């Protein structure tokens, strides 16, 4: 028997939502939330920006008492007629799972000729990756992914959980949200470093679709370096291997790679796939040791806390996150400058081109001022 650890007080990502995002990455056309109409509403709506339909069985008090088998099977039939989907996901909620709703029977009742991934999940798991895992296991059972991908994802999920526990939002009982450092000041700092001829590495270690905005930070740094005539001083690393991950994730990597190419930006080192952010640290460490140990600063975007500090020894670190609760842990790790891209996620859903970041825009403006002087 092993005891469980730290109880975290601040609300944190939900396994139900994690399941929805995973279904999206598997390219389902429709996800049905089996539960109350308001469950996971914000993310459900957001996901619709990403091109999938999210609908609910809208269980009410009566549904909690009498169950919602009929509601679910008729919604399956309706959704099939309305949207002509090729793949459907059904996701449990706290309410339906507590009353013991079973998802298979209503799916069988509906008797569709479309595969349905059933995800018996509620939000009561300390690690939201549990929602991803249940989804993937179910997708494997239906034959949507193979054994190899399932095993690969399991390793990544375990690592992602560890990363969050070590230096992420699950590292402390309570974390105060913060906006981080003022972007203007940090942009000035970066411009100065480049002006002084210091050598820098951009490390984009982004989680899936968030890469559409974090890639803009790398792009801005390169543009500024070019304008200052210091383009040779910047090396770019990014986790944009497009041969790895679930279908939609590979697609993101392809789009971002193409955009960077079009902007004339070379990614010198591909450090992994867009779902490999928890395990890229080691590779980054090796690369720096072998080739870039004399570099002066690093600008890390996405999941900066997944890169171990040993890898970055001696460098000034600027990190860009989208989590307001990530500022303190990053500062504690020793990152000198930490900035937050607020509302990054809503802006990166449903896109397939790089999206301007606030820090990227600030950096470009500051550089203009400096050059105009």
């Amino acid at each position, binding site marked *: *028997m*092993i*005891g*469980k650890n730290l109880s975290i007080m601040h609300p944190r990502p939900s396994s139900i939502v994690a399941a929805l995002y995973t279904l999206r990455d598997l390219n389902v056309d429709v996800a049905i939330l089996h539960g109350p109409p308001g469950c996971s509403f914000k993310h459900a709506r957001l996901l619709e920006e990403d091109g999938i339909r999210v609908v609910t069985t809208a269980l009410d008090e009566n549904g909690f008492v009498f*169950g919602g088998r009929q509601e679910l099977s008729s919604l399956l039939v309706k959704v099939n007629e309305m949207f002509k989907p090729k793949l459907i996901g059904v996701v449990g909620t706290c309410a339906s*799972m*507590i*009353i*013991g*709703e*079973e998802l298979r*029977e209503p799916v069988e009742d509906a008797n569709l000729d479309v595969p349905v991934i059933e995800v018996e999940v509620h939000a009561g798991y300390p690690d939201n990756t549990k929602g991803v895992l249940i989804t993937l296991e179910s997708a494997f059972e239906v034959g949507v992914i193979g054994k190899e991908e399932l095993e690969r994802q399991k390793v990544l999920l375990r690592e992602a959980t560890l990363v969050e526990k070590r230096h992420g939002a699950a590292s402390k009982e309570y974390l105060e949200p913060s906006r981080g450092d003022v972007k203007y000041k940090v942009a000035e700092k970066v411009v100065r470093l480049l002006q002084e001829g210091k050598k820098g590495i951009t490390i984009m270690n982004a989680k899936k679709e968030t890469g559409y905005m974090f890639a803009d930070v790398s792009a801005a740094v390169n543009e500024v370096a070019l304008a200052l005539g210091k383009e040779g001083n910047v090396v770019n690393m990014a986790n944009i291997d497009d041969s790895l991950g679930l279908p939609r994730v590979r697609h993101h990597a392809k789009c971002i790679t193409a955009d960077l190419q079009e902007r004339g930006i070379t990614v010198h080192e591909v450090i992994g796939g867009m779902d490999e952010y928890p395990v890229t640290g080691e590779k980054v460490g090796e690369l720096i040791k072998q080739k870039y140990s004399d570099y002066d600063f690093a600008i890390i975007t996405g999941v900066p806390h997944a890169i171990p500090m040993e890898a970055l020894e001696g460098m000034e670190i600027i990190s860009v996150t989208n989590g307001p609760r990530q500022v303190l842990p990053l500062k504690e790790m020793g990152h000198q400058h930490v900035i937050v891209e607020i509302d990054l996620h809503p802006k990166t859903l449903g896109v397939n081109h790089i999206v301007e970041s606030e820090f990227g825009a600030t950096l470009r403006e500051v550089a203009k001022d400096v050059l105009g002087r």
Partner: protein
Amino acid sequence: MKDQKRIAIYGKGGIGKSSTASNVAAACADEGYKVMIIGCDPKSDSSITLLGGKRIPTILDLLKQHLDVNEKDIVFEGYGGVKCVEVGGPEPGIGCAGRGIIVAIQKLQKVCPSMNDMDLIIYDVPGDIVCGGFVAPIRKGLVTEAYILTSGEYMPLYAANNICKGLAKIDTPLSGIICNSRSVTREEEIVRKFSEEIGSRLVAFIPKEQVVQDCERDGFSVLEKAPKSDIAQVYRDLAKSIMFNDQSILPGSLDDERLRELTR
């Protein structure tokens, strides 16, 4: 997984499901079968008579303490090598027992590979089919046959009739009715008639005998403490008909009026 019997015993609370389940388990173990009994009643009384009166920690007790449980923490070997598991439950009036069963059963499935080696798994399910959680063993595909325990009194038959409706609803076949006698008038006849009218059969009539109570109070099954008694033979016969049963049906049910008429 080898060919195995996975049964659930339903019936009104207090009708004797647990003592019947543990005596059947013991009788099957005597015949050399590998048996597991999963007690879902918070009283933990389906395993206690197989373990010489000893209580075992329940799955939910351990989960409540946030412990990560393994097979050895929750599966205990009792009389004749019967593997005993107790699900447990929340404190009366707090929490949700139905959800408790779902969680415990899922945990059990995950940590207990020896389930696959059993010849017979008995789920001693609490009371009536009152909510989704209580049918979890069936819904999760763990149970393939159900038995209903009743006496010839009106209330247990009413419950039995309700359970029939439940089983039909969730597409689970009924393998028979067991009558645990309360010594009421025309009891065997009433229960037999009921069994036939819902399309099933009476598989055993267990007479009311003090020896069952006496053994239970001492913490033993009849098979262990009074193996030569007549009642021990009744349990042996029941065990045999369960192991060899090959006829199960989706039960019908009676309307209230007919049920009353039957017991009058």
